């Protein structure tokens, strides 16, 4: 084994993750390799410094409000979903009613009626196209099942 092969053992040795046999193997290498022994010493100092850093614990108030903040998001999200569904349904219904009125209305010219029809068909094509694209990418998403 070369020094490079002992690097992984060095980390595990430093973090006390080696079994007795591996520990013995690594210590034998250390005794014969001043370069690795020096590097280990430096890593030990760094580990000591890193372990000495402690993070400030937030006030109790933060933990008391933590769940309610998440719950508010969940509730608001549900509200938005219901609002959006209702808004879409109302817009579609209103649109149909409007079209019905325009078609029935004899005072409106044929050109305006055709233009309106083309506009609606255009919107429908856009909507279907975007929807199809979203479904296509959702199905083809290579990472959809990754890490779950």
């Amino acid at each position, binding site marked *: 084994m070369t020094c490079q092969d002992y690097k992984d053992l060095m*980390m595990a040795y430093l973090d006390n*993750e080696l079994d007795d046999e591996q520990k013995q193997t690594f210590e034998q290498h250390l005794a014969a390799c001043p370069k690795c022994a020096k590097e280990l010493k430096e890593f030990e100092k760094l580990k000591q*410094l*890193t372990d000495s*850093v402690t*993070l*400030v614990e937030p006030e109790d108030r933060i933990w008391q409000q933590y*769940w309610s903040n998440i719950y508010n998001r969940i509730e608001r999200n549900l509200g938005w979903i219901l609002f959006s569904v209702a808004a879409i349904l109302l817009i579609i219904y209103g649109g149909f009613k409007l079209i019905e009125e325009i078609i029935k209305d004899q005072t409106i010219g044929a050109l305006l009626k055709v233009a309106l029809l083309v506009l609606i068909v255009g919107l429908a094509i856009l909507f279907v196209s975007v929807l199809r694209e979203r479904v296509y990418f959702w199905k083809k998403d290579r990472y959809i099942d990754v*890490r779950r």
Partner: protein
Amino acid sequence: MDSFCEDETIDMYLCQGSSKDVFEAFVKRHMKDAYFIALGLVGNHEDALEISQEAFFRAYRNIKQLSSEGKFFPWFYQILRNLCFSRLRKIRVRQTGSLDAYEEDKIQADARDSFDPEVIAERNESKTRLWKAIGKLGDKHREVIILRHFQNLSYDEISKILFCSQGTVTSRLYYARKRLKEILECEGPRPDFGELSRGAGTQKGGRQ
């Protein structure tokens, strides 16, 4: 503290009651871990709090994507880390303000500002320098340092939540520590290791 990676599946939670109550129990059990991991990854209190809460919200919204035998925390951790890394990318791009920001060196250099020394208990020069240096590590290197030193996870636990082998964890830790050492050596005098004994053993945020 219970292990992150014990066999805590979605089925175990769902058999205990309604989904909201079950999720509330999950949040209350893991909120501190989530906050401190996010703090280690993004470096400041406000972002860590906001991101950790957003991660729980997204986990709730997407919980059906988790297979019934899927482990809860490793899955949740992926959401949390992706949000953290995404936030850092946004901060870096905003700070550099140009497409040139995608140059790796520049991006890493700009990460330092998001690492607020105020979140360190019992600050001194060495600790502040180390915290800033952690902020300058690449995301994957910083991640293993945070999980190992601030969450006290074993190699086995780290490999489970990162979905990689223990060999990868060891190797990543080696290069992370090496890089950290280089940053500390490059930016001023060697850290005063003599100060360490005074700071060691104090209460650490996150896992005990």
